[in-house]
Structure formats: structure tokens, C-alpha cells
């Protein structure tokens, strides 16, 4: 397979599903940001706005037996994997009904029942966890593929490069998905990565492609091929998805007024909007129907989260151990 084969597919059920997923992630994030300002969400969030196509399409290429690891910017991955938006929002609000019972928050959202082995706030850390999980499932005779999501910044973490080596060496069924949004916080990728991201992956002996991360169907086709390859026992594959973060690195950034992207650059980046790209493949009626379903679902999610109880402070270290010492 080459990157040239990664064209788009025709309008079908997948087309609608991909639109539903990118739209859900977009609107979830926009609504979550609204809860940061009044303090319903404490600690802020790292918005995924603009990168929705990657989570939506990669997760669409997985079966329910597969697993993912995610990052500090993880809401999109968690939603695309099928987590309940109400429980995710409740987690961001630190409620007992949250995915992690309010113990994890935005950067640690996990739902093991859906194969979400956790968002991880240490840049580059989750790729080695995904590799170990995928290896273990194979040892157990299960047909599981793991996907590790990470950003361009993570490509300079030694541990991630070590994980690429282990995965390739042991032909582990894992797909590495690098979301290159051009920046690690404020550090441009050109100032951070010597050589090229895919060349690093190829040096470990795995196929690596750079694809358009704004077109959900392009990402879907590429990740379907990568997942199939991993499942067939040929080992890991690496996808560098070119994308753009529409908003701040973190919701605190507005207060800090960090100056590192020109308005022209941001406008150009926003002009390739995955929600618009995928939406154009639906009829107006189809789109309107999906949009209104999502608004209804998010209204219910917000009501559920806001109405949920806060954890009881009497036992703040509950769950620290699986077995009490």
C-alpha cells in the first residue's frame, strides 16, 4: 500500500458515521469550553478542536475488541471510541458519575469496558503501554489491535522511540497515530524535530505514511489498512496525520495570551475543517438530522453531569490500591 491509494470512499453508512463522530467531538468540546469559564470544569481542558477527523476515523477502523491509549488532548479519542458523553462530561466536572468517578479528570479519562486504557498526561508515555497491552493480548490468543495516539511533540521523547523499537522488533499488533498539529504547546514542529517524523518510524522497520488528517475518509482508509496489517501479524504501522489545532493549547492560554501563531496562519488552518469536509458529503437533511440528534444528546449529557453528585471527601484516596495494604 502507498499513500497514493488512500483516496476517499463513496457516500455510505461510514460517511454518515464519520460525520456524526466529528460533529459530536466538535460540539462536545465547544460546550465543555463553556463550562470552563464559570468554573464547572476546574483545571481547564486541552481542546481537540480541528483534529476531530483523526479520532473519529481511526476509531471507526477498530472493532469492539480493540484498545486505544490517549493523550492529554484525549476527549476526541474517548468519544470516538464510544464513551458516554454524559459520563465524560461528568468526569471533567469531577463528579462521582464520571467515567473515572471523578478521580481522573480530563487528562486521565478511561473506560476499560470500551478498551480505552486511559488518556495519559505524560507526553509519549502511552505508546509503550499500548505496545505492552497489544503484546499481552496476542500472547493470550486474542485478536486485539492497540492504537496509540500521540502528538508531534511526543516524537522527541526517548521512551516513545524505544516503544517503536520494541513494537517493530516483536511485531506487536499496534498502530501508532501521530497527530501532527504543528505545535508542541508553542514549539513549532520545524524547530523541534530533526529529520522527518515518518523517517524515524521507518528506521525501525515499520511502514510509515504522512496523510491528510483533516479528511475523515482519508484517515479512515489509511487506518483501516494499518489495523488490518497489524491484525494479520505483520507488525506495527505508523500514521502521521497532518492536522491543525484550531484553538488554544489549553483553555488557560487565553489568559496567558501566548503569541506564537499569526492570525493568518490560524485562519488558513481553520479553513480546512474536518466537520465541514465530512459534512459536505451528506445532504442538508441528513446533516440536519445528525446535528439535532447530537444537540439533544449533549443537552442530556450536560443535564446529567451538572445534576451528578460530587465525590464524598471522606475517602479521597479510595481506589489508590487494588488490594488494600
Amino acid at each position, binding site marked *: 500500500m502507498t499513500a497514493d491509494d488512500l483516496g476517499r470512499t463513496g457516500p455510505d453508512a461510514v460517511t454518515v458515521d464519520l460525520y456524526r463522530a466529528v460533529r459530536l467531538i466538535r460540539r462536545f468540546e465547544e460546550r465543555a469550553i463553556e463550562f470552563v469559564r464559570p468554573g464547572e470544569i476546574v483545571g481547564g481542558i486541552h481542546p481537540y478542536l480541528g483534529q476531530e477527523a483523526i479520532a473519529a476515523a481511526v476509531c471507526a477502523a477498530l472493532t469492539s475488541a480493540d484498545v486505544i491509549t490517549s493523550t492529554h488532548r484525549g476527549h476526541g479519542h474517548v468519544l470516538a471510541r464510544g464513551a458516554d458523553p454524559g459520563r465524560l462530561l461528568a468526569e471533567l466536572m469531577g463528579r462521582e458519575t464520571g467515567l473515572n468517578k471523578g478521580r481522573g479528570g480530563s487528562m486521565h479519562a478511561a473506560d476499560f469496558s470500551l478498551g480505552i486504557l486511559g488518556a495519559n498526561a505524560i507526553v509519549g508515555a502511552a505508546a509503550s503501554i499500548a505496545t505492552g497491552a497489544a503484546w499481552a493480548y496476542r500472547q*493470550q490468543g486474542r485478536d486485539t489491535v492497540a492504537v496509540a495516539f500521540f502528538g508531534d511533540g511526543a516524537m522527541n521523547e526517548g521512551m516513545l522511540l524505544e516503544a517503536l523499537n520494541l513494537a517493530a522488533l516483536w511485531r506487536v499488533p499496534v498502530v501508532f497515530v501521530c497527530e501532527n498539529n504543528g505545535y508542541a504547546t508553542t514549539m513549532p514542529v520545524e524547530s523541534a524535530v530533526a529529520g522527518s517524523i515518518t523517517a524515524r518510524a521507518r528506521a525501525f522497520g515499520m511502514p510509515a505514511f504522512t496523510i491528510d488528517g483533516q479528511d475523515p475518509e482519508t484517515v479512515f482508509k489509511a487506518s483501516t489498512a494499518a489495523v488490518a496489517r497489524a491484525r494479520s501479524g505483520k507488525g506495527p504501522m505508523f500514521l502521521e496525520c497532518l492536522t491543525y489545532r484550531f484553538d488554544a493549547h489549553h483553555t488557560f492560554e487565553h489568559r496567558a495570551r501566548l503569541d506564537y501563531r499569526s492570525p493568518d496562519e490560524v485562519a488558513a488552518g481553520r479553513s480546512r475543517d474536518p466537520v465541514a469536509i465530512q459534512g459536505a458529503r451528506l445532504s442538508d437533511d441528513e446533516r440536519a438530522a445528525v446535528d439535532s440528534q447530537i444537540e439533544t444528546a449533549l443537552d442530556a449529557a450536560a443535564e446529567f453531569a451538572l445534576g451528578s453528585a460530587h465525590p464524598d471527601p471522606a475517602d479521597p484516596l479510595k481506589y489508590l*490500591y487494588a488490594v488494600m495494604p
Partner: protein
Amino acid sequence: MPKLSYLKAMNRALADSLDSDPSVFLLGEDIRVAASNLTAGLLSRFGPERVLDTPLSEQAFTNFATGAALAGMRPVIEFQIPSLLFLVFEQIVNQAHKFSLMTGGQCKVPVTYVVTGSGSRTGWAGQHSDHPYTLFAHVGVKTVVPATPMDAYGLLVSAIRDDDPVVMFAPSGALGVREDVEFTTLAPVPLGVGRVARPGRDVTVVAVGQLVQDALAVADELAGAGVSVEVFDPRTVYPFDLDGLAASVAKTRRLVVIDDSNRTSGFAAEVLAVAAERFTLAAPPRRVTRPDGAVLPFALALDRAVQPGREQLVAAINAVLEDK
């Protein structure tokens, strides 16, 4: 009765665990040829999929073990050098240890980290002579430091069966300890339960690992002078057997801790703090430790000068006995 060495006891614990539980597997550097002797004979018995030689990539393979644990396995990692734990502090402390709480109890991370040869290794100098058990106790990672072959067996088996991350330090000074053991009596030793290694009346000496041997030798020596020393070995540094220590101190009302870690914020400091909060003592407690911020120098005389020794222990015991 057959003699069992500490290292052989750990080897047996690994073999028995691999044998009884298919989810157990070992990983580490040069473990197929058993460079440290810990894994001797295990490759031929259990095969390369369960005795996994890793490339030199400690950070990735430590997290790899976490991932495998999340997928239902029970990995045991051998680290060749104690200071490698500094390299993987993030992976043990910030990842494996925190997963259960951060996910609201959705998962468990039963990884065991074994350091074969912790502490001074006689002439290995600054970067090979650390004994960092205090660091893991401080953050709440379950931490065991066995003193005897039977405990090395029993605590390692328990660590592997435990559903949480556990670091096991096998001090290099204890690896050669041998003990008469009927192999059929080898059994798991629960984490967090100490033992009185030698009963006594006049003073309690707390020691773990190789220092238990030193404390017992000193107790023998002082017995001749009419001093009765009780040696308390908590076995597990975290969680600590507070009840066991309380029972001992209730009897002796005097306390000395000998601890092969640095003085400030060390394990001995913790035991003394507990004593101050909870016990009624007849004299202020004392501690024998490495100096503040110590790094082990190479020259043997200097290495020895940094480690807590028997003479210092005798002096500390005499001091708490004199203190009225």
C-alpha cells in the same frame, strides 16, 4: 536439611509462580542467560515467550509491563542495577502506581519490579550502589526488602500475586545468605507483616535486608555483655507493620533503627517519627544511616565509611541504654 540461598529462593519463587499462573511472565536485560543468576534454568523450562530478553530500553519496557498488566498479565521485571529505578521512576511511580486511583478503580496493575543486588556491591562506586527503597515507600508503592531466603521466597511470591505494583529489593549483602530449609515448608509471606528476628527485652532494633544480619550479630555480641536486643524486621517497608513494632517497643521501650538509606527523609526518619507520635519510650530513639545526601565513593574504605555498620549500631544501642 538442605541449604537454600537467598538468590536460589528467589529463583524458586519465580519458577513456582510461572508454573502455577500462566499470566506470569518475566522480562529484563540478559535474563535468558541469567546474567545475575536470578533466572537460571527458567528459559529452558518456560520458553522465550515467558522469559523475555529486552533491549536496553528501560523506560519503554517498564511501561510495556504496565500495558501487559492492564491486559491481564502479571509481569515481573528484573533490573540489573538499583539506579535503573531512577530511570523508570516515572513509569513506576507516575504511571503504574497511579492507574488504579486515576481510573476510579477500573483497573489493576500487578507488576513486580525486582532489583537483584541493591545497595553497596563492593567496589561498584557511585552509580551502582544505591539502595532506593525509601523513595518508593515515600510515594506509597508497595516496597519489600527481605532479609532471609525464606522471606525472599515468600515475599516474592506474594508480590507477584498482589494486584498492585510492588518493588522488591534484594540487597546485594543478603544474596549470599543461606538457611536450612525444608523446601516443602516454603510458603507465601504476606506483605506488610513484620517478624521478630530475635526476641529481647532491653532495646528494639529495626532493620531490613542485609542489616538484619548485622543486627543479629550485634545482638549476639551484646548478649555477652548482658544486653538483651530484640531485632524487628518489618520485611515490607511500605506498608509498614506498625502493630508489630508497637508490640516490640511496648516490651523494650527503647528503639534504634539501622537503615541503609540516606538520613534526611529516610526510612529511619519515618520510623522515628512514628515512635514520637505513638510510643512511650524510656529514652530518645536513635538511627544509624548513610549520611545526608550520600553517594557511595569507590575506594573500599570510603564505601564502608558511608554505610551504616555494626560499630555504629553498638554505639547507638549503648546510647539509648544509657539515656535514662
